[in-house]
């Protein structure tokens, strides 16, 4: 079996005349953590939306786990093992932590079709376990998410992805809205994923964080991948010159 978990070839997305993503060639190996960096509008989120099928690509191919895939929507992507932590938290604010973790994949005690009886206890126990593995501390699981801090909410979103991701996690700026302490907590979760060998694509503006956490850094600029560098062979200034276009010119293979 190939050690490549995700590969894109010539991935392209255009919105009308706008070339949001052009000819992106990208590979991710098993267990590898990759950061995707770039200026606002460079195509990072667009790239992720094509992989997770939140949007349908204009051209190109995506290979996941050794097979060419054509997900019809985010649900299919999720069912095949790709979990995404979206920039705008995909949480239901009025539900408690277990309900959010198991949203759309509830554990059923007794099957009655749409009126199936939920196994609330099992979900609660499993939620506590998932939070423990990701070292997330939530004081009261049965409180609605609405009453929690931004950091706690983000941790729930990440714990949810981590609990179910069998093959790949994608995080779109997971710490953008968080304080220092909360950011640290999220970074610890990411380190835990690395230790468990779960591959990760991390979109981030925070270069300090990127250098702390990942193996490889992929730079987007104006819808193209302009650099793909191992962490050891580059530094902050180098990355910044790729982001701003001082280096890199037209394109590179990731």
């Amino acid at each position, binding site marked *: 079996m190939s050690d490549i978990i995700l590969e894109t070839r010539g991935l392209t997305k255009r919105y009308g005349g706008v070339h949001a993503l052009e000819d992106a060639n990208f590979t991710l190996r098993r267990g590898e953590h990759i950061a995707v960096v770039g200026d606002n509008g460079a195509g990072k989120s667009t790239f992720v939306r094509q992989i997770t099928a*939140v949007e349908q690509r204009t051209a190109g191919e995506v290979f996941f786990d050794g097979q060419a895939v054509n997900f019809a929507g*985010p*649900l299919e992507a*999720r*069912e095949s093992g790709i979990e995404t932590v*979206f920039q705008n*938290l*995909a*949480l*239901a*604010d*009025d*539900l408690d932590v277990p*309900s959010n973790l198991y*949203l*759309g*994949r*509830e554990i*059923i005690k007794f099957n*009655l079709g*749409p*009126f*199936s*009886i*939920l196994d*609330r206890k099992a979900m609660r126990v499993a939620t506590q376990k998932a939070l423990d593995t990701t070292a997330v501390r*939530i*004081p*009261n699981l*049965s*409180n609605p998410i*609405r*009453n*929690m*801090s*931004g950091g*706690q909410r983000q941790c729930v979103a990440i714990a949810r992805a981590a609990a179910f991701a069998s093959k790949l996690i994608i995080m779109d700026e997971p710490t953008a809205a968080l*304080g220092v*302490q909360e950011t640290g907590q999220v970074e610890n979760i990411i380190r835990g994923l690395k230790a468990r060998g779960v591959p990760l694509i991390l979109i981030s503006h925070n270069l300090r964080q990127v250098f702390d956490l990942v193996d490889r850094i992929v730079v987007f600029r104006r819808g193209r991948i302009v650099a793909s560098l191992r962490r050891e062979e580059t530094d902050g200034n180098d990355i910044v010159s790729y982001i701003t276009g001082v280096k890199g010119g037209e394109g590179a293979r990731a």
Partner: protein
Amino acid sequence: MTATVTATAGRPARPPEMNVFLGLLGIALVFEVLGWIFIGQSFVFNLQRLQIIILQVSIVGIIAVGVTQVIITGGIDLSSGSVVGATAMIAMSFAQVSDNARAVYPALTDLPVIVPIAVALLCGLLAGAANGALIAYTKIPPFIATLGMMVAARGISKWYTKGQPVSFPTDSYAAIGAGLNPVLLFIVIAVLFHLALNYTLYGKHTYAIGSNAEAARISGIKVERHLVMVYAIAGMLAGTAALILSSKNLTAQAGMGVMYELDAIAMAVIGGVSLAGGRGSILGTALGMLIFGVIISGFTFLRIDAYYQEMIKGVIIVVAVVADVARQKRRARMV
């Protein structure tokens, strides 16, 4: 800042139903005191009065159980009153006795009671499903879709017999809404949907959609299908209310159920169901219903004009919504 947030997250909040319950007690207490002062008797400690209080609101209460679920998804249902009217007319026309010279279908009289019951449930279900399908698949606002159904269904109820009332039901049909049956049926329905909302997939998804429809969709919940189901259930409950109401009155008229939709919405809102969606409970709505009943009975008890009843009802509805908005603002500040 952080400390306060953590503290709040750690303490289970007081359920909003508690506030509604205290409101109910407060209002009852006011009538009790006024009763002793002006009438010279107790308001609350009168079994007959308590029965009447519950009886006169339980039919609208059944509608409110359905409307509660609709509002929890973030929607609204303005059609239930008109659906009651249309369904009552149609169901009653299949429940008439044969010695009635002016039966709507002279060939279809003395039918077993299951026929009008099935007809009523089906009518409500179809009207509700039409609402839900319009909202889910054309993405028009629930307000508009159900407003259309409200006008159209009222049209149907007038057109069906060209304005003539439909009367003389069979004995078995008349038995449906007799005595305290409306109350018993309300309790059964309320308990059933309380369980459904709290312990089943249906309830979980209903709250999830009202809380964050996009998150629900991304999580794999079939949002459109679920909305059709919720509105269809609300319609079916309106149909049930029509059945009970026409049976209790022994007649169906084109103007039946006028304003019921607003009373039902008001019961839910007074009971703490948030118009923003995602929050509320059947228990809250049931308490809101009792507040309604207490106010109506209280005014009658104090021999105050019905005009004032409506004015006070209006004020209470607005106060309930203001309280809900204030609650949301407080939460928004906290996070």
